[in-house]
């Protein structure tokens, strides 16, 4: 099998597992719904755009931690050994990155819809915000996939993912919050917008490259 085919098979396997063991998926969905419901109850009826934006990205962050956290923990030692014998570490991590990105994009969409439902819609350019949300979900999922790969090697991993990931994700998150103000009809210089997009894309590329370089070292036990 070629590398691409192997990656595809691994992604398919993860998707299939997710479909068979739906409790994970529904668990995260319920997490999103209840968090946003709590926000709905605790906030004034239509929060100010800036508050809305900050809350949205913070929720994205926590949703991602919950979504991605299980991706390496669910693989027990025996199964890892099996993967070790059939795939290279690069194929394995790329497959995980793709799978988590797909999952996170889905969750981002769900939380966006719920935000619109419960917390009104202060966004002036909804389509643009939608695109930025997808880009943001992708960026966050990439970083946390690597973090969960690292944390899976330690014992108390669930808490560790957040501790390890937050400082690393901070610059990305701040850039995303800034960029999403674009959809709130805030005026930017055109060069500033491209600069932000370039930085976010650059950081994403950096994470992917680092994941591919570093994962082989985490892999061997």
């Amino acid at each position, binding site marked *: 099998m070629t590398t691409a085919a192997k990656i595809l098979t691994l992604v398919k396997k993860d998707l299939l597992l997710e479909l068979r063991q739906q409790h994970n998926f529904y668990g995260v969905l319920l997490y999103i719904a209840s968090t946003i419901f709590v926000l709905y109850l605790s906030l004034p009826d239509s929060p100010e755009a800036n508050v809305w934006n900050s809350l949205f990205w913070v929720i994205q962050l926590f949703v991602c931690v919950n979504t991605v956290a299980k991706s390496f923990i669910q693989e027990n030692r025996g199964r890892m050994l099996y993967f070790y014998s059939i795939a290279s570490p690069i194929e394995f991590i790329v497959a995980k990155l793709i799978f988590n990105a797909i999952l996170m994009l889905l969750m981002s969409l769900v939380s966006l819809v719920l935000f619109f439902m419960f917390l009104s819609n202060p966004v002036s350019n909804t389509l643009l915000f939608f695109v930025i949300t997808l880009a943001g979900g992708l960026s966050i999922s990439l*970083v946390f996939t*690597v973090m969960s790969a*690292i944390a899976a*090697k*330690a*014992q*108390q991993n669930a808490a*560790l993912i957040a*501790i*390890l990931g*937050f*400082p*690393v994700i*901070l*610059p990305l998150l*701040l*850039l995303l919050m800034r960029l999403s103000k674009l959809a709130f009809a805030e005026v930017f210089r055109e060069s500033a917008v491209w*600069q932000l997009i370039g*930085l976010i894309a*650059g*950081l994403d590329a*950096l*994470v992917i490259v*680092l994941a591919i370089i*570093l994962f082989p*070292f*985490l892999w061997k*036990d």
Partner: protein
Amino acid sequence: MRKSWWKILALLLLIYTITAGFLWEVPRLPILNETIRNLYFHVCMWFGMMIMFIISFVYSIKYLASNKYVHDIYARSYASVGTVLGILGYATGAMWVTVTWMPDQHQSLGAVLKEPKLIGAAIALLIYAAYFVLRSSFTDMDKRARVSAVYNIFAFVMLFPSIWIIPRLVGSLHPGSPGSDSGNPALNKDDMDATMRVVFYPAVIGWTLLSVWIATLRIRIELLKEKSLLDAA
């Protein structure tokens, strides 16, 4: 003597820094006034921190390449000294902020501290705090060394843009952002008066040498502690 010349040099440079830094004439700009003397300490801490983190990063790469446990001890020790320097840099910066950026005392410190440069520095400290938490969560030595080396490399590379690129793109009160006239804080020769450079450059070298000295002492202690393990390996 041949091996300790740099320690003597560090001592001499620091004596020079402290005496000349406090006694020599400095240009008095509005607002800054005499507080500019803090430059000899505050900026040097960040220089030192960055150099410590770079050395730690290099040893982490070396560890992954060679699997020699000694490199892990090096990486860990340099990272811890770097963290201490970062905290000192933050402390000296906070003192400076209270007299320069907050002329009226009604401003809240929280609003002032939301500066891109300060966020970058906070991220750096958080990353290395997380690095030590990660280290402490392992019981297996080899695993701890390998996984924390991976995190060190990943985090350092991600830290790079948040310290060196992003603060240069957005406006800030801190020197070295596009809003101010200067490009690179500390290294731009137009930024600093000639009389200050005479003290500043030796100060950077002096503080850096001192931090390397502290790190080597830590490394020696660690090596002694784990001597039995290292001999067995």
